């Protein structure tokens, strides 16, 4: 454990990149958004092992909130009373790997948790999350680099040369694997990190709760931070089943994968970062009825909140509620370079997203 602790400390101390900083021009709202988002981004939670992220959310909730965790691992906060019940749901988990076996040479065999470009993890530092703590290692490189996005099956070395030595470090099947991550400010109000999807959604729900005028609520509002979204919306499915036909609407608060990049086609998903939250009106899992999109736009206008409208790819937790007659009005925030170690956001969009959540909760 001593070595493990040493490695983790070294990781923290030796990060040589530019320090996280608050720009001198940051408004109070931007500063608050960053203060909530940064610790969430730097918490680890591969699908199925969201505990550290869930604990961070609980720590950041307003004092009056009474959270509860269901058997699926979802975190719930209920506010207000009466019908129609409205649900907001953002997910806790992130993409990564799970250990499936240990080879004779001590290296770990992996399976993916969620969808991403595998090669982005190749030849990178690795963190193996075990019951006893974090064990440092590396994702091994392939022998040849000529088929960039389709590497052979990944393995991780924790610096051992035998199965027994690896097991002695407390590493075995079931452990999850990530690479180290850090929240870092870019120019202006932009920032980079890994797992903004969906720590930004989780942040926006927290910010909305902090600023919510509970006396203004006309019905019950349920905020859910869900588990295992990246591997099939599993946590949301459990939440939807437990609520059945009770809710009137569900608002999935999740990434709007944006084509605002020199590498993307401009056919759709063109929601520039920094220009506000996005009505995720059409994706691969759900279509918001046009009348509901119109209502969302009206709420945004009435409250002076920046809101874009668009279609993108991916599924959202709200789609698990629609079979129960619940309308899914998904709301997102534009993200560049989704599911990569270098996702980029604009903090103005986080504030905008929090504001639209609050406005919807209080007035719609």
């Amino acid at each position, binding site marked *: 454990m001593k070595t493990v602790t040493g*490695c983790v400390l*070294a*990781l923290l101390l*030796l*990060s*040589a*990149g*530019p320090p996280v900083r608050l720009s001198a021009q940051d408004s109070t709202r931007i500063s608050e958004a960053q203060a909530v988002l940064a610790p969430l981004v730097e918490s680890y939670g591969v699908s199925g092992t969201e505990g550290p992220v869930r604990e961070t959310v609980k720590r950041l909730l307003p004092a009056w909130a009474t959270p509860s965790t269901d058997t699926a691992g979802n975190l719930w906060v209920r506010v207000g009373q009466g019908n129609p019940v409205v649900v907001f749901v953002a997910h806790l988990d992130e993409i990564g790997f799970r250990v499936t076996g240990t080879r004779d040479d001590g290296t770990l065999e992996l399976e993916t948790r969620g*969808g991403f*470009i595998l*090669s*982005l993890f190749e*030849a*990178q*530092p690795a963190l193996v999350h075990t019951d006893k703590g974090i064990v*440092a*290692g*590396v994702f091994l*490189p*392939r022998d*040849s*680099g*000529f*088929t*960039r*996005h*389709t590497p052979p099956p990944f393995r991780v*070395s*924790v*610096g051992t040369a035998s199965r027994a030595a690896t097991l002695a470090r407390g590493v075995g099947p079931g452990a999850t694997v990530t690479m180290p991550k*850090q929240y*870092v400010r*870019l*120019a*202006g109000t*932009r*920032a*980079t990190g890994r797992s903004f999807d969906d720590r930004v959604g989780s942040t926006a729900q927290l910010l909305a709760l902090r600023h919510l005028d509970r006396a203004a609520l006309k019905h019950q509002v349920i905020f859910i931070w869900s588990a295992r979204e990246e591997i099939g919306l599993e946590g949301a499915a459990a939440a939807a089943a437990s609520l059945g036909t009770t809710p009137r609407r569900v608002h999935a608060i999740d990434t709007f*994968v*944006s*084509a605002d*990049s*020199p*590498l*993307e*086609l401009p056919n759709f998903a063109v929601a520039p970062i*920094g220009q506000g939250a996005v009505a995720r009106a059409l994706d*691969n899992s759900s279509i918001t009825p046009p009348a509901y999109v119109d209502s969302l736009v009206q709420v945004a206008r009435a409250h002076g909140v920046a809101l874009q409208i668009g279609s*993108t*790819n*991916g599924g959202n937790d709200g789609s698990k509620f629609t079979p129960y007659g619940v309308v899914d009005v998904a709301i997102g925030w534009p*993200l*560049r*370079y*989704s*599911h*990569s*170690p*270098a996702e*980029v956001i604009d903090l103005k969009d986080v504030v905008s997203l929090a504001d639209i959540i609050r406005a919807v909760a209080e007035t719609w």
Partner: protein
Amino acid sequence: MSDRSRRLSVLALLLSALPPVRLSAQGDVDRLAVRFASMTAVTGLEQAMADSLRVMLPGSVRDRAGNVTLTLGQGSPKRLCTCPLDEVGYVVGNILPEGFLLLRRVGGGGAGRTVSPLLDQQLEGHRVTVFGTRGAVAGVVAVKSTHLTRGRVGPAGGAPDPVFTVDNAYVDVGATSTAEVQGLGIAVLAPVSLAKRPHLYGERLLAAPSAGRRAACAALAAAVQSKPNVKGTVVVAFTVQSLYASDAGLASVKALLGPFDDIKTAVLPARYADTAVETVALGDADRLVREIAQWMEGR
């Protein structure tokens, strides 16, 4: 002082702002190796690391080529112990109106050496540091969003994905215009490298870009700081431009301070060479420190 010289001087000052390391006990080579591995010294643009070495090694000087040299002892024999401190890296090649930077690779093609295709490919979707005149600027290299590749037809005929090259590297520093980029102190020729985050794992294994070279230089610095009883004269040289066309740094040392009766180059074996997790065993660095010190003492 020219504009370019001023920029480089400011850069050197900024990048050498880390506190100097004093060696006093066993294990200090670990700290030195980690510190060196966190530095950036793109071949031909090594000034910042050279300045750090000069602070670390009292009496050392920088020659006209940029090498850092230190002369120990006197008389004959006259020997040279050297370590190349540079790395293959990048410079800003162009700045686009939308605020993205394009890159040019520097180094890797000289002295019969070719770089692994993985070297450039490791940029894709990862954090980089741009060393502007106003300090280090964080950026990322753009990558296609996973979600937006779904359902779209891939390369014709089932061919593998096209290989990422440095020509595909759009650096995003968060800026939205050329003027904003310039306001960050970034201009054409600013050095760029992968963000350096040395990573310790296993039993004293160090993973980082160019970890082998940096740990070897750390061993040479540690050997000097162990104050060996030098036999004759030993010139210690941390050389520049070893990875460009003609290894001009080492050639300059030989021309300016030679001839030498013997030359020793500090080298360490590394696993996963030319990757972001190039790995060196710090136990090997310990042995190299002893080996160099003994060589300096003529044993």
